[in-house]
């Protein structure tokens, strides 16, 4: 079942120099799929993510999430849509500093006026699953980066959204914390059938995914599917990345006969 459908999406930033951040990009994401989007800096990854998360507007094209085109919703409906259908994970966590870990976790439920005992129930479950039980009453500035990112993932999962959008979730983390975070995400995709789109620079992070989509200069470049062994998938990702590194023309003359 297709959850996300991106169809000929284009985003142009008007300014002194008109900049085409995303250009006629099309792809689909299936339910429960864990998709990584990779590309060099400035290739339009984050812009794409912002477009899907509905906080940036499209220039042309169409995005469907669960069959709904969120860009046709009014602001209020859009907020409700984000609140119920989406979860977000950011590179710099974006936890609210004056709330405790527990309060940060329940924030999406608070916004939706859930009853308190329901919130408490869900917090316990999710904290147990993410290993946050002992940290519930700490403030974000008292915990490590990995713990903060796990809290942010908990916040993204607690309302059981249809899709999770992650922007470089491991960008600020050490390798151990990165692994934890990626395993949690991968687990969420497999067990809960949550669709995850993750933007990343890191080939190791990408190797946890089911599929990696490469974009360059806002356009589709390549895509590869994962296989049984993460190690070989990682190798294949590196291969594509080495192609991405140079310009496309260079690659074709050296690699193609």
């Amino acid at each position, binding site marked *: 079942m297709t959850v996300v459908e991106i169809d000929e999406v284009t985003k142009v930033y008007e300014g002194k120099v008109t900049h085409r951040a995303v250009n006629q990009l099309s792809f689909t994401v299936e339910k429960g799929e864990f998709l990584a989007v990779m590309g060099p800096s400035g290739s339009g990854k984050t812009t794409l993510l912002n477009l899907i998360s509905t*906080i940036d507007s499209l220039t042309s094209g169409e995005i469907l999430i669960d069959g709904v085109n969120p860009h046709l919703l009014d*602001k209020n409906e859009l*907020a409700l849509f*984000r609140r119920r259908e989406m979860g977000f994970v950011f590179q710099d966590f974006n936890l609210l500093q004056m*709330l405790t870990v527990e309060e940060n976790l329940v924030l*999406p439920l*608070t*916004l939706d006026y859930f009853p308190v005992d329901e919130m408490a129930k869900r917090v316990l479950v999710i904290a147990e699953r993410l290993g946050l039980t002992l940290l519930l009453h700490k403030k974000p500035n008292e915990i490590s980066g990995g713990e903060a990112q796990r809290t942010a993932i908990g916040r993204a999962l607690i309302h059981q959204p249809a899709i999770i959008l992650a922007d470089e979730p491991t960008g600020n983390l050490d390798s151990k914390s990165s692994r934890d975070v990626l395993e949690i995400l991968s687990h969420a995709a497999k067990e809960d059938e949550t669709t995850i789109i993750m933007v990343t620079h890191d080939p190791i992070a990408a190797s946890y995914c089911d599929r990696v989509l490469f974009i360059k200069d806002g356009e589709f470049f390549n895509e590869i599917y994962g296989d049984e062994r993460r190690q070989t998938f990682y190798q294949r990702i590196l291969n594509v990345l080495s192609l991405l590194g140079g310009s496309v023309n260079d690659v074709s003359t050296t690699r193609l006969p």
Partner: protein
Amino acid sequence: MTFRQLAYHNVFRNRRNYAAFFLASVFSVMVFFVCSMFIFHPLFEKDALQLLAIRGMMIAEVVLYIFTLFFLFYSMSAFLQARSKEFGVLMHLGMTKKQLNKLIFFEMLIIGAVSTVTGTVFGFAFSKFFFMIGREIMELDTLPLYVSWEPFLLTIVAFASLFVIISFVSVGFIRTKRVIDLLQGFWKVEEETKSSTMLAIMGIVFLTVAYIFAVNVSDETVYYIIFIVPPLATFGTYLFFTHTLSFLLGLCKRKKKVYWKKTRLVSLAEATVKLKDSAQMFFIVTIVSTVAFLTVGTLASFMSYTGDFRETNPLGLIYISFDGNEQEAEHIERLTSQLTSEQLSYDLVELTVKRQTSEASGNDVDILSLSEFNRLATALDFEPAQLVQGEGMFVPFSLDSAKELENVSVDTALIESDVPLSIRSTYPHVVFPIHTLNINTIVVSDADYEAINQPLVGYESGSSNFTYYAFDILNWTETMNIGNRLTDTMYEAADTADFNGIDYFFENPGADYRWFKSSFALLLFIGVMVAAVFLLAAGSFIYFKLYTGLERDRKQYKLLTRMGMTDKELGKIVNRQLIPQFFLPWVIALLHSAFAFISLQVVWDEFAELSILGEMAIVLGGFTIAQILYFFLIRWRYVAHLQAP
């Protein structure tokens, strides 16, 4: 966590940011409440001074209300902008605009409720203290504390309405509506200000022109100046902070010898960046401080008005009896017996004043005889005058006129009685207060005085003369209770402008003096309280700017320490950063006020000869000391937070 708890956490866990803002609000509520306590005091009779007190307090309340509204308005907009990243996250997570409004509304209600209640409680706790000051100033026997619902109701209704207004309005402060912009954060834009050279120069020109105008003000131009200078200075100040300063810093930076020296590199670069954020805040702090200085300074200068009161009112009591006054003997009898019973020693000199028309000017003149005048002069410990027949002497009605008349000589004649006079001298003291005698009053020799036997044109024989009873009283300020009935009659007649059936005039300079002194002291008291609220608010703007930037500063200082900056150098940088923030607006405000007072001096000169320099020095000095203390307090906290692990 419910939605309301979210708002609650936002306020209470951000209390460090809110501290100064909260303090200023609480203080404002407190002063407002104290004023209300005065206004509703059940023991306040409607006598003049207490009426003045009530009016003064009411004006103070209105000023406080409007100022607090403005203060909250500005603070809230700054607060909310500083929190835009947080709002961005919330909206990203799916908070609707309506929910955001609700959140801000709840937060404002919490802050409002807490500060109103705290302010009221503190106000009530300190009421007794303020009542003691009020009692001293108004010279009341007692001004007891009382409990009544009215002051509470007024304060709570006033501030509740105020906070509700702000809650509704402040929602509109979140300018950018796009989540993506909010997420970037407000403080992220830290480019250097692009200052326009033109505007930079205009700022200096405006200020200079305003100052030149203020210095060169004269009696004739003062009324234009009042309308030209304040807007000019305000606009000039704005340009100065927004453009001139960064222009000057730019000039400094261009000289690498100056710029790349030790800690200067960091502090100058910091200053340039912070200036952009702070320019408007500096401007507002400057204007608010200037207004506070001017208020208190002006009121303090009233106080000096009482300074030369004694010189222009050497008499203790004055009673003037006109033709046909049947109560003359009775009144004098009552006054002397009252003085005796109050155990006040006095000299009573009775002067018969004759009225004639002067040939030289064509005006009425009041004529005194030399012997009667000298009797009074001796009683007052002034030197007696010497006159021969045909000679006259001016008696000045004010210190000003004494100077003006000094070298004036006039040859004239008294038309009705045909007495020629040559006036060659002026008595060096003011003896009779202004309004008690004609402004043209002369003393003549006894022989000439006897020769005046015709009444003023249009009067029957003898009916133009009047008797002036001058009391010289040693303890002249103790005459509060003397002749109260006469005083009341005089006020009543003056109020209704109906002098029918009143053939006398009574004045009690001692009581007037006490009244002036009390009322000015009262106004000053109110003014100082209001100014204190102003200054505290100005301080809270600075505090707020510091604390919203604290996280960022902390990172930066940590980096600098890691790079090998010593604690001493850090202290230096902190000083360089804080001192301008605290004292730059302050210095500009002092300059503004100083020039404003130079102009005011000219205005005062016109009404009453006063020198306000001394009072001004005390007022500005006092505020400066308070500001320095505030600076050290904040610096101490700031450095502690910076060095915290």
